[in-house]
């Protein structure tokens, strides 16, 4: 069977896979991009839209064809049911997408550990628990130390109070430890924030407290004007407002007032673009107009007072 004729016919239907360009095209297959610096034909670009579109389309087709030719020349990897081309490492370096991350501030413990040279030891998550004979997490859910069944007896010193509830005491101590850790975490956050801004943590806390004090002073019915002041309380400095001179030129004042009035009117005009009632009255009781307005879905709010 001579199939070469059919193959040739099939091949002739499409354009040639070979593409020749004057200036060789650069490829960065790692980024799946090609850089074609061949000059475009100005005559074809300036001719009518059809020729221009056809020309640009042919250029794009050539570029895509060259890229695919290159991709097919790469080493391949055969997976379960597909063949992959292994792209090389990208050559062009792209700029950073996001800004550089800020340097993390060291916490109190990290500073101490650095000075003393303490290294953290990596612990495994699971620990062998002898009593149950299996591996349990070191802490948290289903850990040996959190298991309530484990604490069937608590050794207590001789001089301990017999009426004290030891279980409650243990729970209380745990709560205290958790609260202490949270406090320390909060303190670390505040210190980090303070050092970021360049203040000392105590100064930042002091200014925050002062601001809160000032705000609370004005939270009375008379905005803090008539409250009795404590001895030694500093006077709160407000922003000094500047007023126009009392007796100025009448014309300037008039023009300023007109400006403000225009601004107010513009705001009003925007709000009242259509006086619906007036429009209804002007258009009259024309049934057709009424039907039209009702069909547009305009809802007239019906309120009845009781």
């Amino acid at each position: 069977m001579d199939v070469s004729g059919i193959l040739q016919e099939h091949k002739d239907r499409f354009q040639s896979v070979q593409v020749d360009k004057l200036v060789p095209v650069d490829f960065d297959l790692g980024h799946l991009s090609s850089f074609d610096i061949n000059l475009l034909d100005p005559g074809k670009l300036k001719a009518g839209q059809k020729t221009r579109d056809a020309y640009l389309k042919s250029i794009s087709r050539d570029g895509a064809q060259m890229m695919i030719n290159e991709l097919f020349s790469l080493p391949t990897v055969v997976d379960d049911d597909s063949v992959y081309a292994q792209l090389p490492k990208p050559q062009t370096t792209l700029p950073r997408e996001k800004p550089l991350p800020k340097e993390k501030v060291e916490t109190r413990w990290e500073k101490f550990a650095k000075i003393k040279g303490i290294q953290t030891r990596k612990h495994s998550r699971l620990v062998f628990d002898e009593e149950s004979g299996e591996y349990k997490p070191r802490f948290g859910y289903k850990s040996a130390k959190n298991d309530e069944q484990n604490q069937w007896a608590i050794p207590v010193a001789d001089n301990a109070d017999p009426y004290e509830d030891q279980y409650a005491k243990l729970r209380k101590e745990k709560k205290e430890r958790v609260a202490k850790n949270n406090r320390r975490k909060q303190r670390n956050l505040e210190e980090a924030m303070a050092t970021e801004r360049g203040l000392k943590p105590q100064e930042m806390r002091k200014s925050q407290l002062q601001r809160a004090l000032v705000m609370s002073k004005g939270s009375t019915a008379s905005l803090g004007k008539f409250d009795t002041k404590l001895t030694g309380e500093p006077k709160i400095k407000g922003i000094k407002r500047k007023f126009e001179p009392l007796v100025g030129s009448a014309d300037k004042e008039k023009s300023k007032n007109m400006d403000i009035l225009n601004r107010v009117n513009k705001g009003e005009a925007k709000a009242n673009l259509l006086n619906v009632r007036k429009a209804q009255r002007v258009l009259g009781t024309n049934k057709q107009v009424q039907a039209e307005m009702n069909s547009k879905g305009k809802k007239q709010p019906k309120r009845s007072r009781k």
Partner: protein
Amino acid sequence: MRPLTDDETKVLFEKLTKYIGRNIVHLIDRPDEPYCFRLQKDRVYYVSETIMRKATSVGRHNLISLGTCFGKFTKTGKFRMHITALPLLAQYAKYKVWVKPNGEMPFLYGNHIVKAHIGRVTEDTPEHQGVVIFNMADVPLGFGVSARSTVDMRKVDPTGIVVFHQSDNGEYLREEDALF
């Protein structure tokens, strides 16, 4: 005494626009002599320039009032209009309500106006619009806010409220201490 800041003027004009609309121009731009707004102790006074200049010679604690008091600014910066502004409002009012003789006294005692007491209303008064209330002899009695538009007013029953009371002439007696 001091002139109003831009923000205060804006608040004042917005309030006035609700009652007299674009006629504020007549307040600012008068043909006879220039008038101005001045603030003394949170109260807004509308006074002619010549009188204002003379008033500068009165001390701050001695100056009680000058010109026409329009109202006062509250602590939070809102403007509250007083009955003393009525003569000017009545002159330039856009939307008016006339009240029958039997409805005058309830309004002057501070009650809202019911439909039974309405004599006349200007056409196409929108809802929640500032209105000035007159009696049948065209004497201004006070001002308020329309509870319903003119069209809806026709549908409401006679004991329904059509105008909310804001200020009336009776306040000259009731709030004698607070007016000036």
